[in-house]
């Protein structure tokens, strides 16, 4: 009657941490039916960190919950560390835990350490046997000096870290982190990203991260799965995905970039962005190798003396927007900006607000 042990064991057979095959889930019936996940298949190697991206409504959360068993899929199989999650749920779930967005995931009236001990037990591990691990975990997440403080008395960012710590407390080998850096400040986010990488590299933890914040994904993930309208539209290493965008841009800045000049250039080049309010005004042009010469010729002919010239590398966000079309184009940007002060778009921290906290 004892649950399956989940101490780390080497896996010579190379069984993936997670194998999803033909997973589908529809909600509703008849004309109102919505296909949230549509015939999704993928496998994730042990010890890797995989990003799960997609616009709101792409099916990410339904997919994660279907893997966790809190949503029952209509079709398909899920194998966690080689065990069928539908047939042998208990055994399979000894090694999985998740931190879902917008949920506390722990008890605010208990202290940080009490939560770790409680959820280690619920996860199938005797708490005394991992007490030292808990101390190290708290230490790495900068929570050691608050270990005996009730969670309700902590700041929002610290609560987020406690939520992560409680997910890791039971020694799960596969964890899902939905918006793990939500509400964290720059330092907190950096600590958390470093810890995720360390857990994967040193302790062979397999992590699936879902986030709107492309910096987090680029920073910690080996591989990215992009979903749109319930299906996987891309599944590749981060570097290779970045390589799929063969679109290069040149950004020039000059006091001579008058609105009339910019209008003239718009008619002849693929102008991606123009900021006449900047000091000096700037212009971003999509260009292949040859068009660069034409652009500079045109700028010289217009009497523009360049103050600055930069090439703009494609970002994961560009890849994401291209893969998901308009749906992705409008959604990740404000979230990414708002959720991490000093993030890629350098929006002010005041945009963070309290949405998504729910408690």
């Amino acid at each position, binding site marked *: 009657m004892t649950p399956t*042990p989940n101490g780390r064991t080497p896996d010579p057979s190379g069984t993936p941490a997670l194998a999803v095959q033909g997973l589908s889930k529809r909600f509703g019936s008849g004309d109102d039916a919505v296909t949230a996940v549509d015939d999704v298949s993928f496998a994730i190697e042990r010890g890797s960190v995989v990003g799960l991206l997609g616009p709101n409504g792409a099916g990410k959360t339904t997919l994660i919950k279907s893997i966790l068993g809190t949503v029952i899929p209509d079709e398909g199989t899920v194998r966690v560390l080689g065990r069928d999650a539908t047939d042998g749920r208990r055994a399979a779930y000894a090694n999985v835990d998740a931190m879902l967005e917008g949920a506390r995931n722990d008890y605010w009236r208990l202290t940080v350490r009490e939560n770790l001990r409680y959820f280690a037990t619920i996860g*199938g591990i005797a708490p005394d046997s991992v007490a030292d691990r808990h101390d190290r975990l708290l230490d790495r997440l900068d929570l050691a000096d608050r270990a005996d403080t009730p969670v309700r008395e902590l700041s929002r960012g610290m609560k987020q870290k406690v939520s992560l710590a409680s997910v890791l407390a039971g020694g799960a080998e596969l964890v899902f982190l939905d918006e793990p850096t939500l509400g964290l400040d720059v330092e907190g986010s950096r600590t958390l990203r470093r810890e995720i990488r360390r857990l994967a590299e040193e302790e062979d933890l397999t992590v699936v991260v879902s986030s709107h914040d492309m910096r987090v994904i680029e920073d910690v993930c080996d591989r990215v799965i992009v979903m749109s309208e319930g299906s996987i539209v891309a599944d590749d290493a981060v570097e290779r995905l970045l390589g799929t965008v063969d679109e290069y841009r040149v950004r020039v800045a000059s006091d001579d970039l008058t609105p009339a000049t910019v209008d003239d250039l718009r008619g002849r080049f693929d102008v991606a962005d123009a900021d006449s309010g900047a000091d000096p005004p700037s212009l971003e042009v999509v260009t292949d190798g040859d068009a660069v010469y034409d652009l500079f010729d045109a700028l010289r002919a217009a009497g523009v003396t360049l103050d600055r010239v930069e090439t703009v590398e494609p970002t994961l966000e560009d890849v994401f927007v291209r893969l998901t079309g308009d749906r992705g184009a409008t959604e990740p940007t404000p979230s990414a900006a708002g959720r991490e002060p000093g993030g890629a778009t350098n929006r002010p921290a005041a945009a963070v607000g309290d949405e998504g906290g729910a408690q």
Partner: protein
Amino acid sequence: MTAANTGADDGAAAGDDPRPATYLDLARAVLYREFLIFVRYPANAIGGIVISLVFFGLLFFGGRLLAGQALADSLSGIVVGYFLWTLAVGAYSSVSNDIASEVQWGTLERHVTTPFGFAPVALLKGVAKVIRTFLTSAVVLAVMLLATGTTLQIAPVTVVVVAGLAIASVLGLGFAAGGVTVLYKRVGNWLNLLQFGFVVLVSAPVLDQPWLRALPLAHGSAMLQRAMVDGVRLWEFPVADLALLVAVAAGYLAGGYVVFHYGTRRARRLGVLGDY
């Protein structure tokens, strides 16, 4: 607990050698959590005791004004009935409210996917609630006895067993209400009104209508009256009475768990488990 020392052999630190949690570990964790919240946040428990006593005060002093001697004659019966009612309300509302809270906190999902399976966790949580409710209701009982000058036969084993089995059926109703709440969030609040129906069950005329004994609380209430008013000990009850008490408790507990199980299963199918 068997694997506790395996790490020592290969030099691993005692706190760095994961071993599987046993059901004993699980029981300890669930009960300890309940204990911590009880002692750390006593306001909830004290508030419940005060409200129970205020209600009883109104019942007792108001009843004495209206009924006079008639009330005094049946006072011990009223005290026992009220004691059982506070137990029933405590067990029912703590279980159904607890499930609703856990849905809201996102902790229910973690209990549903535990390798232990949800049933033992839910049952242990129910036991924890019943123990807690016994403690608060004992205080209410003591104050009622002092305030009214009534004397009752309080044989601890008999009272705990009979009252415990009586409210086990209510615990089942709490699980059923929790299962419905997981599916239909707003219905949960209305189900709290059920606890006022417990008054009817506690005072059900089981002597005149024997079939009422099959309802939750009713048979247990009649037995508790005999135990506490007439001094009948547990082993002095007819075996048939005890068997019926156990059967009703087990039946409603199992039925409630089945409703909860199917409620959460349907919520998982509809994708609404954890939504709030």
